[in-house]
């Protein structure tokens, strides 16, 4: 059976989440009870089931529906949800424990009014566990929300101090720009235009994640994406990403026309080269990129209109990609970069079977 890329990605995140909750539960058991095999087993079961259930629901249910909910609402819903699931699991394991300890059938334990199960739920130990679970769920979800505000992996990079001292790295940049955005903005008015852009950026998210791109910055109606070369060159991800976005928008064209009277048309310039990456600023910290590569990518994007092409890439990037047989490329000749003596050969890229 061949799994789609998205399913693979989802399964992978479920795996990672489940493993970490299991490990976390074992550590808690060790801290709480010391080396008691049964306590560890209990917590391991809880941790494993918790991770599995939570991440599955999160990926297949929440990520579609909860996205557009505000920060605090989402935080509260998720915290409640985490707490309920984990409390249910604690009770479940409690039933299993009581059952095996007293040699009772499990349904007897549940039916046993005022018996050992109720006593357990009323016990101080249980309420302590619940308070602990609420706090933990809140903190985990808070961090997850923050992670989303900052963008993929950014929080991790800050924690590791990866870019505390600037370092040089090779990156692929895509500048993706809305066509005739001024006209659209004038037509829609400011408020509607914002919603239009938000919808557009929203629809872009899935293709970007699927093709391992990372959102660097929103600059007005422009979005800047980056890839590590290994991610971006693999399966021509960076090029595929553009067309995946385009196809997604084409599929939703009717929605845009109905809602706004226009649909987003856009163009992109891609380039690959060395940049300096580092943390910057104090009252607002950012991990930023500096270097000619960025200016060049922006410049390539601005050439799209002149050549009447949707995607232009530089020779440097084309040489690294494996486009032969997958896409149609055409040389656009050399352009002279602003303020540079250097010339750069550009290529247009098109799908072989456009949607």
């Amino acid at each position: 059976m061949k799994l789609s890329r998205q399913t693979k990605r989802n399964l992978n995140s479920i795996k990672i989440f489940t493993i970490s909750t299991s490990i976390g539960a074992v550590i808690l058991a060790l801290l709480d009870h010391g080396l008691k095999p049964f306590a560890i087993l209990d917590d391991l079961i809880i941790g494993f089931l918790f991770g599995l259930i939570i991440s599955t629901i999160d990926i297949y249910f929440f990520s579609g529906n909860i996205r557009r909910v505000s920060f605090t609402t989402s935080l509260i819903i998720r915290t409640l949800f985490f707490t309920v699931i984990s409390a249910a699991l604690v009770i479940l394991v409690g039933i299993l424990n009581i059952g095996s300890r007293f040699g009772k059938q499990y349904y007897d334990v549940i039916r046993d009014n005022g018996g050992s199960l109720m006593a357990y739920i009323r016990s101080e130990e249980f309420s302590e566990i619940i308070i602990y679970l609420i706090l933990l769920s809140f903190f985990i979800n808070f961090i997850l929300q923050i992670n989303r505000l900052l963008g993929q992996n950014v929080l991790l990079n800050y924690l590791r101090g990866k870019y505390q001292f600037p370092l040089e790295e090779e990156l692929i940049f895509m500048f993706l720009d809305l066509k005739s955005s001024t006209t659209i903005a004038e037509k829609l008015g400011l408020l509607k235009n914002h919603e239009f852009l938000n919808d557009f950026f929203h629809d872009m998210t899935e293709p970007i994640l699927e093709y391992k791109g990372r959102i660097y910055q929103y600059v007005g109606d422009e979005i800047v994406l980056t890839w590590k070369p290994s991610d971006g060159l693999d399966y021509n991800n960076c090029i595929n990403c553009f067309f995946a976005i385009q196809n997604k928008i084409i599929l939703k064209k009717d929605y845009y026309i109905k809602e706004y009277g226009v649909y987003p048309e856009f163009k992109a310039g891609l380039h690959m080269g060395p940049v300096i990456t580092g943390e910057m600023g104090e009252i607002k910290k950012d991990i930023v990129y500096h270097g000619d590569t960025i200016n060049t990518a922006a410049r390539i994007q601005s050439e799209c209109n002149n050549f009447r092409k949707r995607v232009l890439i530089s020779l440097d990037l084309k040489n690294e990609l494996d486009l032969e047989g997958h896409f149609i490329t055409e040389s656009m000749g050399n352009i002279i970069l602003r303020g540079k003596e250097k010339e750069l050969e550009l290529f247009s890229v098109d799908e072989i079977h456009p949607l």
Partner: protein
Amino acid sequence: MKVSKFLSVPVCSCNFSENFFSQFEEKTVSSGNNLYSLHIMAGSVKVKQKIRSVLLISFFGIIAGLLFVGLSFGFDAVHVVKAVTGGFIITFVIGLIENFIFQSKFRKLRFSTILVIRTLVYVLVISLTVIIVWVTHESSVNKVGFITTLGSEDFRYFILKGDFKVILIFAIVFSFLVNFFMQINNLLGRNVLPKYISGKYHFPVEELRTFIFLDLKSSTTIGEKLGPLDFHRFINSYFFDIDESIVACSGEVYQYVGDEVVISWKDKKGFKDSNCIRCFFMISDKIKSLEMKYSEKFGITPEFKAGLHYGKVITGEIGDSKKEIVFHGDVLNTAARIQAECNALNQKLIVSEEILNNMDLPSEFKTKSLGEFLLRGKEQGIKLYGISKE
């Protein structure tokens, strides 16, 4: 004089030389000239500001102490007195450390290092204060000396088996969380997190805002001269040095775009105390006072220009996997275009008519009318003014 000099040290030591001693030398060398005395004056105003903020924090500390003690031990007279003194001492000491030591020394450390050090310091201050308050109370009740109390069986019981353990665990968790939030707040930009939490911009809102586009002059040339790595360091230290002035003028850093910084003020905040214009000249003065450092380190001093405009924007959250609160509107484009006119008009700061119409400019600033301009992509002309300071 001696006192103010001492107090102004942490304020002035915002030049981030690699080691402490070279900073000190720099200061003694430059202490003869006018700039330094200017600095001290600016410093003492800041010292007042900082002390005020420390006192404000202490007030909240007292309330937090009351809440904590009240909830965990009940509101009897002894506990209330302990909570008030304890809460005050803890927040006052932490406030002093934050404002006078951490703010200038800590800025360039790694996220997790700062988090760990801060948490440890907080926990240390809290535990010491709790011990001091306990010992003082016990000593006065039993009418014995502090040393005797410290050696007593009661003290050992308090530390090992009594309330201290609860307080300590609470202190660790609390300090960690507070510091984590503070760090996150810095990553997102000042006051951005509360906006997400309150959901203020979850649905886009129309606002009036002032924008400055502050741009490095001849950055391409500088970039070529320094090479990419040094250019990054150059920009980083420039961004660090301007932060203080932006905060002092209550500006919000919206975005760094390459070597450009976009600063904004909501509603009329930018016009109050002529904040938006003062901000530019404060930055300018600050960079001028650090000229030596820049030319020593990079061989170049940053020169910059700015465009200012005021108008309607839409503010709202945008994006999924990376969320941001963004501004959309013509004001931004216009401010950027105004900034772009600086070179041609040979001005450092150009403002639009909208800015001047909304504020009374103090006499220290000189206005020069530059005429009406048709900016790129615009149909209506806009009147621009150059601003300079005596």
